[in-house]
């Protein structure tokens, strides 16, 4: 899955990412994915956060893998 090259350069400008997983997580998970915060939906959980760099982003993705959560999407939010 994540066989891409990870560049640990800091993001050019701070980017906010939205990660969606197809499982519903409750409050006890709230600090587990920092710097991402959780918003539970009906059948999805939304993780929102501004990782310091790619390495931190991938660290969170690996946690998602390790807990067996199902990844739906990873998207940067448009800056406004």
């Amino acid at each position: 899955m994540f066989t891409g090259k990870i560049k640990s350069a800091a993001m050019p400008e701070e980017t906010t990412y939205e990660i969606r997983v197809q499982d519903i997580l409750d409050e006890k998970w709230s600090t587990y994915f920092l710097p991402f915060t959780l918003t539970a939906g009906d059948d999805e959980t939304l993780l929102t956060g501004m990782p310091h760099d790619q390495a931190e982003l991938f660290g969170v993705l690996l946690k998602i893998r390790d807990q067996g959560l199902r990844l739906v999407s990873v998207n940067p939010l448009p800056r406004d």
Partner: protein
Amino acid sequence: MTTLLPTKFYPPPIPAGFVARPQLLEELDKALSHRLTLVSAPAGAGKTTLVSTWVQSARKKGVSFGWLSLDEADNDPGRFLEYLVACLEEGGMLIDTTEIPPGLGDQAQVEHVLVDFIRGLMPLKREIMLILDDYHLIQNKEIHTALEYLIEHVPPRLHLVILTRSDPPLELARMRVSGHLAELRMENLRFSTQEAGAFLKKFAEVQLTEGDVASLNERTEGWIAGLQMAAISIRGREDAAAFVAAFTGSHRFVFDYLLEQVLNRQATEVREFLLKTSVLERLSAPLCDAVFETGGTARGMLDTLERDNLFLVPLDEERGWYRYHHLFSDLLKLMLEQTHPGLAAELHRRACRWYEAQGMLPEALHHGLAAGDMELVTNIVSENVLALVEHAEIAPTLAQIDAIPDEQRSSLPWLEVAYAWGLAYTGQNQKAGPILSLAEQHMEGLSDDKREKALGHIAAVRAYLTWTNGDQSEEAVAFAEKAAGLLPAEEIAVRALNLTTLGNALIQNADDPRAADVLEQALLLAQQAGQSHVVMQAASGLAYVYILLGKSHQAQIVCAEAIEIVELYQRRNARPLTTAASVYALLSRVWLEAGEFEKALQIARKGMALSEVWGQVDTIMMCSQYLAYALAFTNQAEEARKIIQDSRKIAQKGPPWHLRTLDYVELQIYLDSDPQNAVEIQREVARKQETVFKSSPLLTARVLIKQSQSIEALVLLEREQANASKYGHYRNTWLLILKALAYFQQKDHSTALSSLKQALELAESENEVTAFVREGAAMEKLLRLAQARSIAPAFVQRLLSAFESRRKHKPEPALVTEALIEPLSERELEVLQNLNSYLSTPEIADLLVVSANTVRTHIKNIYGKLGVHGRSGAVRRARELGLLA
């Protein structure tokens, strides 16, 4: 060679009542016809259990296997390769490979090791499976590349199996196309409805409807861990159907939901136990009792939990240690925080104190840091600074301290002091200096007496660093004296170490007699301190200065007494005392000077092996020197050169003194071979650093004489004569020998003989044979002259005989038939016989009716006594010694 953890080679046991899935086992049989089999599926899918089961059945069919459970620390290529080789050896294979040099760095080196490794595997007569569990923890690119190289060039009988949570970044597509890859993925591991039904019937102990089975299987998507948790949750329920309905109706994260269910089904005590012990990386009954704080119930809990086969993985056959299945540890910790907010810190603190009481300091440090209790951490560190760098290996402790964020570390000068000691011991002098300055700046927070103590430590580390820098002996002496003034009386260990540094610096300053006094004090103090490496350092320092003072007899006694301590320790702790390396090195030198080259070689090998495990750089350097000399004197000059080459790689990372010493040793060894070709000699000399000659006028004179420049040599020697009053016995003897040779070259026989006579007088009482024998043909001629003039007849005769026997010695390699200094015990011999079979360690254990750990201990001792690093080395050496046919 690092100390290898046996738990990593131990495939987790198969749970009782396990549901075999024959079609999957058949799939795995395909592994024997593929280079790589990939088992890639999320946590809890049953990968490890499946492969572990398959391995048992394959073993019966005569397949050998090596199992390696990987962890994050294996991301270092050198360590990874070491473990790779070791796990195959553990599985019964002999791998004829060179030793992996410490600090394996670049790609070229890694490939070199692999080429060797592959070649060593070539003559395989059995199919071998190499199984790597938890490969997703490996993120180091060099290791991935190395593995690809291995797969590319793998000998036909070796097969790899990789278990992972996500596909590794290897060229999988290419392997698929070439038919080299077999795979098992989630779609294969997923339970079918039928399989789920069979499983649930057995484990839920309740008859479920087909519909309910289907629903459960669908909701968990055939995930075995989920099915297992569901089964446990259903057990003993009256209304299983209601559970299924609620479960399938919920949208919550399946894992979360089920774990909660499982916990709710446990007795309160068990639930609390699970939550509270989740902070531990590894669990044992006594540790859990300490953390859980209800005396004595932990053993029962662990047994119960193991029976359920869900949470705990045993780490050894004795059921002494466990860990939580990786799947659960994180979530349990989150649940702990939810049910007992803030308790985790206190639990870590309890674990920290337990580990400290056991003297397991790196683990204590880990938990103290996890507790965020910097005061506790500081106390542990300040009370145990030297112990932290003594235990087993320095590197892990250093890594831990390195991992503490700078701001935190700098608010605790004691951490910086400990860090500096660790850096100094591993030869990282450049880094250590600034850390010490930082530590000095951060002294404000400390109370007066703590500050003095810290400043004393800082001065002691500075003294040590300056000494190992090699050409600042006066500064080193100054620092050591300053430290002595600051260190409070109760800091016995550091004071002893500091005195040792002072003694060593004085030797460097050519003040041997005062050094001897200081080192005698150091040893007495060290013996009070009870810290082994301090005793060993003091003993070896003292032995060294005794040799320089011409008291080899006393040197031998000091070493012998130290070795008694070593043997006591080893008997009590069933593992080698790595810090004793320097004592073995010095003992080897004693034998060298006396002309007992074979003995010297054996002891030197032993010292070398130990020093590499401990990892203190100046000890490694000392051991490699004496090993090189011993090899050279037993006609193994090529080997000697190789040792020096390997040591240069380590020396390059440390202070310049080490490189200079290696140059010195290499040149001495070269001159000992009695070269005659002037051009060759010049070439050898030109390759050495300037500083080698500047710092050793006697070596310079020796070179000049070999180059037939006796006039220049004499000028140098006369100048040194003026310093002779500072010189101890050893250097004086050498000075006189060189003078004798120089005058002999000038054809001034009477002056030559006069010098020689003085040298003989000095050397005779301690039987210092080597100093003469090493000077080759010229010395032999001169000695015959002396014999004709009846000068020191008995000693001269002995020397001439030594020349004779050196000539008779076979060129290379010497067939060694001496007895071992430390013979193998009967048990060890038994184990040794079995190393030359394809028996794995557990199989040998079965054969001898002992535990696998006992066998591992025997094996470690065998390696130590034979001075080797692996099975094939042991077999080879044993054959040389006539212990094996």
